[in-house]
């Protein structure tokens, strides 16, 4: 990635779209600390986070969902939520108390699972629920740590259109909670509907930026970057 500069304000939804290999996930890995930036700075709420570890960034309020499911397949849906609801509490280091005895944590997991309509399936193994449900569990997972900034990596990828709509609703709900969202998408219609502002990347560069409405009207840019002609 080169010469990438942008900022996300509170309550804003920002989408980055581009084809395979445009560097979208690389950008995410930089923002989230999986990769080290060779140059430039990254700020989170005016704090320089360029050189701090991924886990510290999480404690500062950055949450991320992955492109591939990163659930624990042989654990139940509820148990999948457990590490996420414990992480910001000192209880994450408790060694001699059963994890099922933390009622307030379980209530929190329950609320999150209920918003994703997954509470009924809490005793199913994560590998047995449908792919769409796994994606929703993945988002619930990231939400559990009370993020102040959500990085969503292709939330609509590989989903049936009806489930994409549901994921869109979930994202809208996040907006109501005024959590800023940075979205990476290969699916422009979905991204344009979900986001307030759009960046298009290509080969590691940001080549275009505008609001979704402007982009819809800009026939030239659409043809050039999204391979769409006409309106």
């Amino acid at each position: 990635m080169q010469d990438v500069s942008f900022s996300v304000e509170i309550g804003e939804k920002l989408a980055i779209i581009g084809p395979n290999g445009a560097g979208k996930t690389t950008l995410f890995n930089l923002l989230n600390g999986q990769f080290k930036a060779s140059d430039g700075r990254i700020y989170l709420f005016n704090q320089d986070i360029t050189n701090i570890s991924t886990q510290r960034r999480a404690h500062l309020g950055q949450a991320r969902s992955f492109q591939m499911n990163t659930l624990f397949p042989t654990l139940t849906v509820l148990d999948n939520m457990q590490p996420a609801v414990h992480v910001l509490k000192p209880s994450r280091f408790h060694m001699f108390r059963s994890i099922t005895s933390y009622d307030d944590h379980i209530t929190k997991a329950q609320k999150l699972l209920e918003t994703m309509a997954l509470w009924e399936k809490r005793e199913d193994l994560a590998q047995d629920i449908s792919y769409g449900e796994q994606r929703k569990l993945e988002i619930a997972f990231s939400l559990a740590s009370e993020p102040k900034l959500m990085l969503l990596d292709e939330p609509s990828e590989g989903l049936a259109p009806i489930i994409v709509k549901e994921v869109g609703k979930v994202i809208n709900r996040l907006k109501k909670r005024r959590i800023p969202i940075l979205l990476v998408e290969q699916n422009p219609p979905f991204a344009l509907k979900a986001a307030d502002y759009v960046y298009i990347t290509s080969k590691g560069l940001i080549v275009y930026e505008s609001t979704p409405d402007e982009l819809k009207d800009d026939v030239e840019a659409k043809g050039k970057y999204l391979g769409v002609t006409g309106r």
Partner: protein
Amino acid sequence: MGGIALEPIKRSSQEQLVRLLPYIFGLLLFTMFPLLVPTYLQTMITKVFVFAIFAMSLNLIWGYTGLTSLGHAAYFGIGGYVYAILVTRYGIESFWVSGPLSILATGLVAAAFGIVALRVTGVYFLLVTLALGRLVYYVAVKWRSMTQGSDGIIGIALPNLGLPGFTWNATYFCFFVLFVLIICYILLYLIVKSPFGYALQGVRDQEPRMRCLGYNTWLYKYIAFIIAGIFAGIAGMLFSQYLGVFHPDHTGVAMSTVVLLMVIIGGTRMFFGPIIGAIVIVLLEYFASLYMPARWPMLLGAVFVIAVMFLRGGIGIHLVRLWEKVINGYGSVKGCVPL
């Protein structure tokens, strides 16, 4: 709200009793069996208990944290050596002093080794732990003034518990080790069922994800590594008391391999799996030593091949499945344990 909504997960007291049955049965078996058999079998059962602790400690970092160590006998050896040296060389008679000191020493060594070993992951972790294990082995061989070299330390007495009028015999020692085993079992069980233990399993399955959630995964692995070292040290200390002799071979690669086999055979995914593995291996070793002493390594290899080919995931998981079938009815999928 949480408490009420959770009702379906809570089990009735009758169901809970059924779930506890295997534990009650196992405990009865372990307590009654040593009383019913002759002394030479009692000592063998004691050995089973010692190795059960050793294998459980390895399973904490292998089965629950995903770190395969090929040098776990190092901590077994250090626990044994420190205890033996304190008792025979420095004459610290009381178990209440020498015991905790040797456990502390093991913990410190594990803390130092952990910093080195956890710089790498995967196969490289395996190799570094192997190297560190060899390091401890050669220190034991070469530091003759302290460890008596390859002659080993002899004359390690049974622990002095400071009880007036109490003298050891094989049965008492067997129950002493069983008591320590039960304590270790409970402590380790609490650890793996705690938020800390869940985080360890998260690190095992999805380390990048856990880091993203905000877990310092290195610290979790490091703490687990130290805890596993400490429990291995307890096993080593008991082993030196059991045998009365401690030898460099007890801290070598062969020992690390045997305990790895115990965990493989018993199964890494079941908490009690390593105990089953310890029972199988120690029993087999005992009978092999009776009937064909020279063939033991071959037999061990055969057992390993059979375990890998026909008991995928270890004996433990198959026992659990059998038990689930017994209580839920044959062919039931309820509570089915995934491989």
